[in-house]
C-alpha cells in the first residue's frame, strides 16, 4: 500500500499531551514542532484542548498532496474532489439548487475541527444512520448532504463527481485509524452549554442583526457579488432545506458558536449562540424532500428520527406562522432527489 509509506499514527505518551491521546498526522508535518501539540492555535482561540482518550487527527493539506507519494492520476482525482467541495456551485442546476458550497458549512475545506470535519465519515462508515434507518457508506453520506444541505439531488453513486468527492474525504483521513474506538476530537458541531434563559426569538433577532447581518443580510439571503459566491444564505430559498442537519437548533447553535462570525469563532456567548440559532431556525427555507404533502404528517413520520430537534411544523409565536407548511421546494422545483426514502438491506435477517 503506497499510501502508508509517509503516514504516521502516533500514540503519544508522556509528552506535552495528555497520556493516551492518539494523534495521527501526516509524517511530513510531524517534524514540525507545532504538531507536538496539534490544534494549539485553536486552544488559544478558546476551543477545548484535546482530551485524554480522544482521537486527534490533523488532515493533510492540498500542499501535502503535491508532495505525497501517490499515483499522479489519484492526485488529479483528489484535486477534482477538493475543487468540487470548495466550489460546489459548479454543479448548480444539476446537483445543487441553492447558493452553497460544501465548504459553506464545513469550514477550512472540510479539515477544521468543530466544523464537522468530513474525514471522520471516511473512517466511521459504513455504519447505521438514524436519519434514514439503515447502514450508509461514505457515498450515501455525501449524497445526503446533496439532497438536504445543498437542496439538490446527488451525483450518481460511482460517478466521476462522487468518486472524486469521496477520494477527497478519504485523503483527508490519511493516517487516521479505521473504525476508531476513541471519540474524535472536534467532530460535528458540538452545541454550546445550555443557556441560562431559554432561547428567545426577539433577542436572537437583535443579536443576529448586530453580529451577522453585515455579511448574511438582514433577510438572511446572503450575498453574491457580480454573480459570484461570497456569503451563503442562512435561510430562504438560497439556503439548505428543512431536512438538512443544520435545521436542528442544537446543531445550528453548535455551528454558530464554533464558526461564526467568520474569523471569530467562540466569540459569542452561549446565550447569544442559542438565541441566534433559535431565530435562524424560525425562518422559512425550502421544503424537506421527505414531505408527504402535509406538514403535520411529515412531522409525525420524521419527528422521532429527526425533527424532534428542529422547529419544523411548530407554530412561530409572534405571528402564528406554521414553519414548513408550504410546498416551496426552492429552485429545484419538482426535481426529487433520487436517494431520499430509498430503503436498503430489507431482506437481511437479524441473525
Amino acid at each position, binding site marked *: 500500500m503506497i499510501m502508508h509509506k509517509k503516514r504516521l499514527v502516533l500514540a503519544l505518551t508522556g509528552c506535552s499531551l495528555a497520556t493516551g491521546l492518539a494523534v495521527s498526522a501526516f509524517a511530513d508535518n510531524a517534524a514540525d514542532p*507545532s504538531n507536538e501539540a496539534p490544534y494549539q*492555535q*485553536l486552544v488559544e*482561540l478558546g476551543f477545548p484542548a484535546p482530551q485524554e482518550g480522544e482521537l486527534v487527527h490533523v488532515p493533510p*493539506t*492540498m*500542499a501535502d498532496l503535491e508532495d505525497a507519494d501517490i499515483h499522479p492520476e489519484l492526485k488529479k482525482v483528489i484535486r477534482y474532489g477538493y475543487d468540487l467541495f*470548495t466550489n460546489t456551485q459548479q454543479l*448548480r442546476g444539476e446537483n445543487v439548487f441553492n*447558493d452553497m458550497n460544501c465548504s459553506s458549512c464545513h*469550514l*477550512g*475545506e472540510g*479539515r*477544521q475541527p468543530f466544523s464537522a470535519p468530513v474525514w471522520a465519515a471516511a473512517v466511521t462508515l459504513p455504519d447505521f444512520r438514524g436519519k434514514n434507518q439503515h447502514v450508509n457508506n461514505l457515498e450515501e453520506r455525501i449524497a445526503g448532504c446533496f439532497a438536504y444541505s445543498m437542496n439538490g439531488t446527488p451525483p450518481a453513486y460511482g460517478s466521476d463527481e462522487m468518486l472524486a468527492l469521496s477520494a477527497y474525504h478519504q485523503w483527508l483521513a490519511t493516517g487516521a485509524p479505521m473504525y476508531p474506538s476513541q471519540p474524535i476530537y472536534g467532530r460535528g458541531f458540538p452545541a454550546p452549554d445550555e443557556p441560562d434563559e431559554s432561547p428567545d426569538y426577539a433577542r436572537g433577532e437583535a443579536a443576529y*442583526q*448586530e*453580529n451577522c*447581518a*453585515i*455579511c448574511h*443580510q*438582514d*433577510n438572511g*439571503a*446572503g*450575498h*453574491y*457579488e*457580480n*454573480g*459570484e*459566491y*461570497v*456569503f451563503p444564505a442562512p435561510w430562504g430559498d*438560497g439556503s439548505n432545506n428543512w431536512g438538512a442537519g443544520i435545521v436542528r437548533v442544537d446543531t445550528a447553535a453548535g455551528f454558530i458558536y464554533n464558526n461564526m*462570525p*467568520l*474569523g*471569530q*469563532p467562540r466569540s459569542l456567548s452561549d446565550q447569544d449562540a442559542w438565541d441566534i440559532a433559535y431565530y435562524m431556525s424560525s425562518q422559512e427555507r425550502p421544503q424537506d424532500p421527505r414531505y408527504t404533502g402535509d406538514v403535520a404528517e411529515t412531522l409525525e413520520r420524521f419527528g422521532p428520527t429527526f425533527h424532534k430537534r428542529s422547529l419544523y411544523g411548530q407554530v412561530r409565536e409572534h405571528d402564528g406562522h406554521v414553519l414548513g407548511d408550504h410546498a416551496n421546494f426552492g429552485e429545484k422545483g419538482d426535481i426529487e432527489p433520487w436517494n431520499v426514502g430509498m430503503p436498503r438491506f430489507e431482506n437481511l435477517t437479524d441473525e
Partner: protein
Amino acid sequence: MNKKQWSKFNLLMGASLIGVSTLAGTAFAETGDAERGQAAAATCTACHQANGSGMNIPGGESWPRLAGLNADYIVKQLHDFKEGRRQNATMMPFANMLNDQQIVDVAAYYSEMPITPGQGGDDVDEALLARGEQLAERGDWDAYIVSCKSCHGPGGTGVGETFPGIASQHAGYISNQLHAWQNDQRSNDPQNLMGAIAKRMSDEDIQAVSAWYAGQDVSAQTGSEEEEAAQ
C-alpha cells in the same frame, strides 16, 4: 446567474447597530456629485495623484489608490478620519477640511475613476508569492487565517461598501494597514472583522499577501468591462 442586489437597508441596519451612526446620516444626505468632487479634491492630488492612483513609497508611508474604490467605503473612511476613529497624522488634516457634502462629492469623484495598477511587491520571490496566493484565495486554517477572498470577494475586488477592493492596491499600503491593525493603530473596522485576521499573520505573511494583491491587476479588466457596457 443568481445576481443579487446588496440591500442598502441591511447595511444601514448593520452599520447603525455597530455604532457607525454617521453612515446612516450620510446615506440620506444629498448624493455625491463627481464634478463638485473634482473641485473639492484639488488638494488631494499631491498625494493621491490626479488619476487617483496614489503611490507606493517603499519603506515610507504609501498613498493608497482611491480610483475605483466603493463610494460609500470612501465616505466611511473620511468620516472615520475626521471623527478620530481612524488615526493617521498625514491624512487627518485633509479629511478635516471636508464638510459632509464635500465628502460624498469626492467619494463619487474617486469611485468613478478607472482602477489603476497596484505598485510594489516586485522584490518578492516565487515561494512567497505562492504563500500570498494561498492566504488570499484559501487562507491558512491551521493558523485560523480565513482567506481574504471570503470577505473581500473573488479576486479581492471588493464586496459592497463594507469590504473594500484590495487587488491592484499598492503593496506598501496593504502591508502598512495590516501592520496598523496588528498594532491597534487602525481599529475602525466593523466588528473587528479585519483586526482579528491581521493579528494572526506573521510579517512574512503580510509581505506575501501584499505583494500578491498588488500584482493582481484589475485595472485593465475593469476598463474592458466599461467599454463593453458602453457599447
